[in-house]
């Protein structure tokens, strides 16, 4: 168990390291370097000033030296400044993390609440119900999230005027009201994957001998599902959840942009459009780290729940 834990932890750190190096090098390929942007903001700077500034900021050094310098600071918790907000990047992102969580976490729970009962039902019943549920899952997989958001904005905000079209809302009630549409869109767009997976896992378990024995002994469908199928389907479902966190974050980005939620995705997008590349780098790293951590937690809880894995 300890060996497995160490190995997975080291892997995650290695990936994070690679992503940070990759993005740092990419930053060098972004349009306009920070000094060019400074010059355009202040026409009195001469070319000699610019060269001096480059030396001051270390921009005349080779990119690898700069990366390791940045890494050393990052390990001490200093991630540099956001050009646009004139604040440390970390403090800009501090608030955004909570906004993102307030959208993503309820959406994930809602997706489970939709997908697991329907998946079990489809596996148990078969026939037209199975086909109908399958089609619904296919549509959920195929609809563009941003289009679903536009359609729901049109329906509920423009036509019916029941819900706000976007924004953060004031107070708790206002915040909840502004979360209904983004959370619904996000959960509908990820429910399809979980639905298909639950159905496939449940169908496989229903074919096992011990389930047939239980059925022959007269265990009712509901008892069968709760006692035999669900606990066994839960394990692969946890792994899948870990793997889907990246997709969840991607969906959150779209929803945050469309519903004007000031979360990580929105900050990242605005930062890229506004040439605020240090902020974009830190936002991307934070998102990646969160995804890897979630993935790791999913694997660990899987290993913890399934004694066979600890032995490996």
């Amino acid at each position, binding site marked *: 168990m300890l060996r497995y834990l160490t190995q997975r932890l080291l892997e995650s750190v290695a990936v994070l390291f690679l992503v940070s190096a990759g*993005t740092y090098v990419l930053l060098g390929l972004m*349009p306009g370097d920070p000094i060019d942007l400074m010059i355009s903001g202040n026409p009195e700077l001469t070319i000699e000033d610019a060269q001096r500034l480059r030396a001051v900021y270390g921009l005349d050094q080779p990119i690898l030296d700069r990366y390791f310098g940045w890494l050393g600071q990052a390990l001490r918790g200093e991630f540099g400044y956001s050009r646009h907000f004139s604040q440390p990047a970390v403090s800009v992102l501090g608030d955004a993390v909570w906004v993102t969580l307030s959208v993503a976490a309820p959406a994930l729970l809602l997706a489970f609440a939709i997908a697991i009962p329907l998946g079990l039902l489809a596996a148990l019943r078969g026939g037209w119900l199975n086909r109908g549920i399958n089609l619904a899952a296919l549509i959920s997989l*195929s609809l563009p999230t941003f289009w679903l958001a536009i359609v729901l904005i049109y329906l509920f905000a423009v036509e019916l005027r029941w819900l706000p079209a976007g924004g953060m809302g004031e107070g708790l009630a206002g915040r909840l009201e502004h979360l209904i549409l983004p959370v619904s869109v996000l959960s509908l767009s990820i429910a399809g994957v979980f639905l298909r997976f639950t159905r*496939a896992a449940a169908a496989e378990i229903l074919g096992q001998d011990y389930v047939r024995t239980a059925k022959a002994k007269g265990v009712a469908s509901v008892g069968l599902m709760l006692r035999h199928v669900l606990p066994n389907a839960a394990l692969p479902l946890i792994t899948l959840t*870990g793997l889907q966190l*990246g997709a969840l974050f991607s*969906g959150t*980005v779209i929803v945050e942009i*469309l519903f004007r939620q000031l979360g990580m995705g929105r900050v990242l997008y605005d930062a*890229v459009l506004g040439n605020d590349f240090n902020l974009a780098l830190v936002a991307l790293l934070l998102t990646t780290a969160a995804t890897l951590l979630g993935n790791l937690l999913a694997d660990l809880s899987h290993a913890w729940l399934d004694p066979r894995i600890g032995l490996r």
Partner: protein
Amino acid sequence: MPGSTLALASAEHRKRWRRLLGQPLAVLALVFLGLLALAALLASWAGGDSGQVDLFNALAPSSPQHWLGTDELGRDLLFRLLLGGQVSLAVGLASALGAAVIGTVIGLAAGERGGWIDSLLMRGTDAMIALPLLPILIVLSAIDLTKLGFSAAVAQSENAALIRLVVLVALVGWTTTARLVRAAARETLAQDYVRAARAMGAGPLRILWRHVLPNIVAPLMVATALSVGQVILLESVLSFLGLGLDPGTASWGRMLAGAQDLLWEAPGLALYPGLAIAATVIACNLAGDGLAAAFDPRRSNRRS
């Protein structure tokens, strides 16, 4: 005898086609995709002046001249949709093929080499699957091509935007294919006839080319067909966010970006491109599932 092997192979082909034709949904999806591609291709020369800007006739409702009405510049919406279909389908196909090539090379290398190369490549694939793709693509799409050594004229041309989009999507879309190819390659490499070929002195490249590749064509086709849909979705998101194509290029995602601001006046502008994306992606997924059942029944049974 080569003759009998050939007869066997064509019998297997006929069986595959029969299995494919036995699935009405998959056939319907393939027909839909075919017609869409045909209409999109024909639109360029049959459209005449439908693409002309006509500001006096902007946002017109549907009429015999303009079946779906006109957009904010008075251009025929149906014509724009078909032009967008050209771009979306072409980008989708090209990226899916690119991803298939990358995935095949990585999968074959991992399956054939084994050992630490295999574990490194597969850990990398796992990591790639877990990463949040859209944030990464947003950052990647901001790269300044002139800093990669391209001239300014090349970097700002419309084709550069198209190619960049295809490359970006292909670079992140290869993971499923790599895993499938690796599994199939390992399965084939363990067969007796491959071991025999190796004992007779065949090198690794010859074995991959002569024995492994023919055996992975079916799962590869299925994986590629299934990925076209996902790739079209990714393209539409990036174009919608204004990170993919040039604003002048009509792709479905690009059309939706403009439509969002006109939601109050002209909801149809937002409705039809979205429906086109959804229908195409659903059709690709149905066709992919159908191909899976027809070409690779063993594997697809195992999966569902």
